[in-house]
């Protein structure tokens, strides 16, 4: 602590009006110092970026693969479809960067029959955007599974949308559109999801994301399957 005090006189020398204790440094020298430091900093960051980016991208791709596989119940393979101009396409339209397009994944079982779509979505939850992926059987109009990819919900309460396995299991098989009901108030309808006590907003957001995505994408998903068969 004692050496903190040493600083004070020098800070005072920088202040307006105070007599400069050392000779005036030209602006050019200040400019050169900061430019040089900035350039070196930039170089170092670019170098580390190049070094780490492949690992980061590979991890993200692996996480997505795992998630698609999980919500579709481990399909044999899947195709990536691009959402463009209110329709799904196997390849991105010419002249459009594939990375900017929304993607859905269409899973197939071993005998070549369609398992369902895996669809990503995100909406604001209690604290920040909840990102999730869910499986959807467009023929039976049921949800196959749901997995939260990213969330900043309250630890111990809102994050039960990830950690409460009973809640996650509710998303295997319900019909759409989903309806959230309070714990113990379920009437037995096939589209009901028991919400988590203490995590009402987070549960409602999860249900809302799935309903909204299907409302928007649903017709395209069905149209694509009809066109393909």
């Amino acid at each position, binding site marked *: *602590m*004692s*050496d*903190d*005090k*040493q*600083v004070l006189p*020098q800070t005072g*020398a*920088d202040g307006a009006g105070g007599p400069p204790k*050392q000779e005036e*440094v030209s602006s050019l*020298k*200040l400019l050169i*110092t*900061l430019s040089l*430091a*900035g350039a070196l*900093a930039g170089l*170092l*960051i670019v170098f*580390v*970026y190049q070094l*780490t*980016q492949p*690992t*980061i991208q590979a*991890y993200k791709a692996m996480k997505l693969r795992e998630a698609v596989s999980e919500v579709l119940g481990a399909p044999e393979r899947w195709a990536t479809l691009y959402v463009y101009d209110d329709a799904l396409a196997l390849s991105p339209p010419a002249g459009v960067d594939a990375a900017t397009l929304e993607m859905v994944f269409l899973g197939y079982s071993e005998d070549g029959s369609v398992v369902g779509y895996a669809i990503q979505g995100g909406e604001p939850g209690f604290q920040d955007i909840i990102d999730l992926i869910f499986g959807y059987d467009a023929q039976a109009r049921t949800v196959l599974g749901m997995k939260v990819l*990213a969330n*900043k919900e*309250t*630890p*111990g*309460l809102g994050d039960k949308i990830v950690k409460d396995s009973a809640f996650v299991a509710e998303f295997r098989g319900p019909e759409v559109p989903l309806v959230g009901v309070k714990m113990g108030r379920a009437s037995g309808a096939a589209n009901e999801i028991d919400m988590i006590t203490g995590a009402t907003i987070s549960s409602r957001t999860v249900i809302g994301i799935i309903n909204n995505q299907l409302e928007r994408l649903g017709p395209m998903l069905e149209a694509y399957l009809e066109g393909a068969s």
Partner: protein
Amino acid sequence: MPTKTTPGQDLTRGIWRENPVLIQMLGLCPALAVSNTVQNSLAMGLATFFVLFCSSLLVSLFKNYIPQEVRISTYILIIATFVTVADMVLEAVVPETHAELGAFIALIVVNCMILGRQEAFSSKNTVGRSLLDAVGVGIGFIIAMLMMGSVREILGYGSFLGFPLFGSGYEPWIIFILPPGGFLTIGFILLAMNWWEKRKADRARAGTLADGAVGRAA
């Protein structure tokens, strides 16, 4: 007047006697925000250690070339660079922990503990002593983070480093992993430390009085 320290003291004082979090009350923001598990505390502690060490190295190396007028900007630039490096490395090596720490990695830039060490020590001492100081303060920060993280994870999750400790009958004190738990934990740690220090001082005073020595106890 600043008292001269030996190189050994440069290293050790930051660890406990002048611990950045528990004594100087610096870097409290990450200490409260991301100390909810041991794993997060450790990652944050190591990232901060890395940034502090590298910044102290560069600042002490180039202290004679950095003009007084732009020294703070230059320190911030150096610190921000290493924070960005730490951020990317953590994302590549421990992506899940990186996701948990979120914005707090980027916020190491404005950790006044790091800037404080550059301004108060590295900018006027040799490279060797600056590094000793950085290691000491860095270890002190990690110790404080681990103390917070252990208490909060054990009470709030009933586990240590992810291993369950109490079996299924334990009902976790969720409050300890929520923000209020951070304040409660640091409050109790400071209470215990101050009580201990006071007891030690009282005993020392009683000891000197019993020996008949006068005037040494202040």
